[in-house]
């Protein structure tokens, strides 16, 4: 019995001893983790992170590759131009909504109202521009502002009144879809006027091949430039910086990805070029990612999501952060609703209903943003959306019925949440959460 009890202890002790001894730590505390220089160091660091449960985007990237290979093997149309362009166009609207959800999840909260808010946004736009003859842009902006106000109202009830976000947004989910149905009136649907801004959202393609390639080139150039500049500034300040080899590798991977996508959008037969919807989705992603990672507001969101009391004591206006995050979620939901309206040819009573809400939340979680708050990336909205949309697209190509699609998407979501929970537990036991 005593032997049984002893073994795991001994094991953990040797594991702790073994790791630092591999690190060339001379003058510093031998228990410190010092990263070796160069690639070997990154590889061991990577392995250590994976063992410690810091999986990041790894499961979803592996999942995406597996999904692509399986469907491509089943049906060689999967990785074709039209199919990829479809995925890009279909993901953008719900993807933008999912970016809003990532903000909310980073706070450790949930927003169940995004589907209804998307519906209200689309309804407001349609009623204003078609029934009341408002200008195209004005009605689009009004719809987005409407979403922002709705989100702020949720945020005020949550932050100031102290009602759980779950309940506030559940009430919103019901209430706003009621407002949507009321706005849509008797007919229950308003078609998108041809030639309008909203129609262009998902139907406009930049047919010029230079557009897709140019965007890919600009993205790679900007990424490499910012990485190199950052490395130089860090070196100048005497801080450890990324080695050139790693920057080159990262840039290379990004370049391959960008140009493959651009190639498929441009070159094959039937390719229509770069979809406007994809450009807008990417713009929202880049902007949101910048806000989350590089600004004080983003830092405050993480702090509130990690430890709200500590954030409050650090002088952060927790209520303001919470209200702003819910306002962002509402705003992006309304904006995404316009994309959905554009895709389905107009605003309807049921727009944003059905499984929209579930897909939006599932995408953020599948992409690797934690449900427990304080951990996640904006890009998980894109990754998760790609997984869900690829599965749907692939199953469509297979001619699979929608009930099977639901079941498979549900299983993928469950798998993602299981990975999140398990990796969180592993992180706890590895002392990293």
């Amino acid at each position, binding site marked *: 019995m005593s032997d049984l009890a002893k073994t795991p202890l001994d094991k953990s002790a040797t594991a702790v001893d073994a790791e630092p001894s591999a690190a060339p730590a001379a003058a*510093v*505390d031998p*228990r*410190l*983790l*010092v990263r070796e220089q160069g690639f070997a160091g990154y590889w061991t660091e990577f392995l250590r992170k994976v063992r410690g449960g810091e999986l990041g985007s790894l499961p979803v990237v592996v999942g995406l590759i597996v999904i692509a290979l399986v469907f491509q093997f089943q049906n060689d149309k999967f990785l074709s131009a039209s199919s990829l362009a479809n995925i890009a166009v279909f993901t953008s609207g719900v993807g933008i909504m999912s970016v809003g959800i990532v903000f909310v999840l980073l706070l450790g909260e949930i927003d169940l109202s995004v589907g209804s808010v998307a519906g209200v946004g689309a309804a407001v736009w349609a009623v204003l521009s078609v029934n009341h003859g408002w200008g195209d842009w004005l009605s689009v902006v009004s719809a987005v502002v409407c979403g922002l106000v709705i989100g702020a109202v949720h945020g005020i009830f949550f932050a100031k009144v102290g009602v759980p976000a779950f309940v506030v947004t559940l009430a919103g989910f019901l209430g706003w879809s009621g407002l949507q149905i009321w706005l849509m009136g008797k007919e229950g649907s308003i078609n998108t006027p041809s030639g309008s801004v909203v129609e262009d959202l998902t139907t406009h393609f930049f047919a010029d091949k230079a557009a897709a390639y140019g965007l890919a080139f600009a993205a790679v150039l900007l990424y490499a430039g910012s990485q190199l500049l*950052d490395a130089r*500034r*860090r070196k100048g*300040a*005497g*801080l450890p910086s990324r080695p050139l080899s790693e920057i080159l590798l990262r840039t290379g991977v990004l370049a391959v990805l960008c140009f493959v996508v651009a190639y498929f959008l441009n070159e094959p037969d039937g390719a229509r070029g770069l979809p406007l919807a994809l450009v807008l989705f990417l713009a929202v992603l880049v902007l949101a990612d910048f806000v989350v990672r*590089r*600004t*004080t*507001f983003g*830092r405050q969101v*993480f*702090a509130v*999501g*990690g*430890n709200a*009391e*500590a*954030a409050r*004591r*650090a*002088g*952060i206006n927790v209520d303001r952060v919470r209200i702003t995050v819910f306002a962002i979620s509402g705003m992006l939901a309304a904006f995404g609703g316009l994309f959905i309206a554009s895709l389905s040819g107009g605003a309807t009573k049921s727009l944003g209903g059905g499984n929209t809400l579930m897909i939006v939340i599932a995408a953020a979680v599948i992409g690797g943003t934690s449900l427990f*708050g*304080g*951990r996640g990336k904006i890009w998980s909205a894109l990754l998760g959306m790609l997984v869900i949309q690829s599965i749907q697209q692939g199953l469509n190509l297979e001619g699979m019925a929608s009930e099977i699609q639901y079941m498979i998407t549900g299983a993928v979501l469950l798998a993602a949440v299981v990975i999140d929970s398990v990796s969180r537990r592993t*992180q706890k036991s590895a*002392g*990293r*959460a």
Partner: protein
Amino acid sequence: MSATPVLALRGVSKRFGAVQALTDVDLEIHTGEVVALVGDNGAGKSTLVKTISGVHPIDEGAIEWEGREVRIGRPHDAQNLGVATVYQDLALCDNLDVVANLFLGSELRTASVLDEIAMEKRARELLDTLSIRIPSVRIPVAALSGGQRQVVAIARALVGDPKVVILDEPTAALGVEQTAQVLDLVERLRERGHGVILISHNMADVRAVADRVAVLRLGRNNGVFDVADTSPEEIIAAITGATDNAVTRRRARTATKEEAK
């Protein structure tokens, strides 16, 4: 030691409903001085600290800052004056890295874009001057040990370069070596000219680093002692309110047992 105390409480009282938590309490802190605040559970130590750090505004009395009367109504007021508080629960964000925690709420930035490089550089300098050793300034606080978290929390209090640092039971949850490290750090704070208020139940810690000991009993002052020329018995007597108390009785009992042997 300067003549005017950097922080002085004059006749401070605080009431919570029917409970008189503090009655007519005086306290003086000079720069470059460690004042230990001791007292039994419920003596009002935490309340006193919270009045200084702005969590509970005082009902009566006055708070003087460098000889000038000030009002501390919110935590923000205390921070602006130069009072930094390290709470017992540390108030760190586990998901953020050490740099982010150090600068939380006072990030270095241009417009509202974070200047990570400047923050990391200053974080390293700060930790170096305090001889704080942690694995990396870029790992999440969750990955640090209890002692490391404690020193990070103290370092965090120093980012705004405060004049007075309040430490609430900094060694309560620490092992022998970590305690020694934190006490070293307290001494370094004194060397750097900070006034330190140290709340502790541990008489050994208090005698090791404090210059003066202020005793609270039932919400009132019960004596201020110079550590150098006061015996622990006197301090314990002040804390418990009598020379005949559980501690002295126990000591007397064990002493007679020793003699009997």
